[in-house]
């Protein structure tokens, strides 16, 4: 039963990922990305990471992909669909990625060969669950051992929000960039 769920979610994640990078229409890509993220969220649930499952659904599917869809609507060019979608050197890139993939799978196989002597290898996918829930355990460690990185993350998010607003607002508000834009217009 576990294996059935694993393969369902893995298939969803991989098929969504492949569709994301091959679709011509960016909206289709974003919808495939949602499928892939749901598959990964299901895998989190299988690994007893319920908090990450909720974060994945709320933040990634509810937040990031909606942001992507907004931006796709904003920069939507009808002729963009008719343009060439891939680089000229895509065969080279595919060969490079495939060879790195072979190396990675070889490394994983070697790691498994080394580790397979361990008695708990077969039950790797069924982690020991303690009495407390997953969220409580994460909160305990996050707010004691990782308190400083946590606060640094909040600073990062504030900087990112302010930066995104500054970057995306209309350029007319800044006198300096008006000149820069005029110069760019003359160049074109």
């Amino acid at each position: 039963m576990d294996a059935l769920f694993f393969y369902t979610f893995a298939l969803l994640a991989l098929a969504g990922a492949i569709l994301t990078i091959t679709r011509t229409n960016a909206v289709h890509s974003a919808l495939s990305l949602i499928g892939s993220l749901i598959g990964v969220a299901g895998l989190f649930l299988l690994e007893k990471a319920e908090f990450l499952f909720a974060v994945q659904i709320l933040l990634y599917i509810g937040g990031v992909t909606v942001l992507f869809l907004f931006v796709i609507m904003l920069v939507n060019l009808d002729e963009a669909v008719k343009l060439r979608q891939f680089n000229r050197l895509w065969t080279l890139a595919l060969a490079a990625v495939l060879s790195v993939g072979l190396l990675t799978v070889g490394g994983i196989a070697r790691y498994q060969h080394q580790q397979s002597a361990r008695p708990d290898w077969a039950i790797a996918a069924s982690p020991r669950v303690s009495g407390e829930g997953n969220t409580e355990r994460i909160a305990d460690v996050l707010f004691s051992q990782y308190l400083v990185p946590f606060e640094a993350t909040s600073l990062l998010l504030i900087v990112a929000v302010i930066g995104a607003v500054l970057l995306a607002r209309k350029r007319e508000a800044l006198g300096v960039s008006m000149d820069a834009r005029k110069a760019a217009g003359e160049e074109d």
Partner: protein
Amino acid sequence: MEGLLYPITLTHYLVLGAALFLIGALGVLVRRNLVIILMSIELMLNGVNVNLVAFSGLHGDVNGQIFAIFIIAVAVAEAAIGLGILIALFRNKMTVQADEIQLLKW
């Protein structure tokens, strides 16, 4: 006799995470549309998260999941900034094709 497919071990998660990462890397390398390149970066980060959560499950330790939370926070910040840059770029150059943006090319 243990089959290759049936008992789901850590290896399955590692191979899946590597596959997601490589598909994302391929997307970054071959696509011309900047929005899809940003989506591919999200795919790569998700592949890493699958690995971290799988190891966290193997060791019965939540540290891996906390690293995944930090990765998600950084990914969200990266998506916001990346899309902001994309909109600013689109306003100025009216294109989102990666190889048409060559202001720094001499």
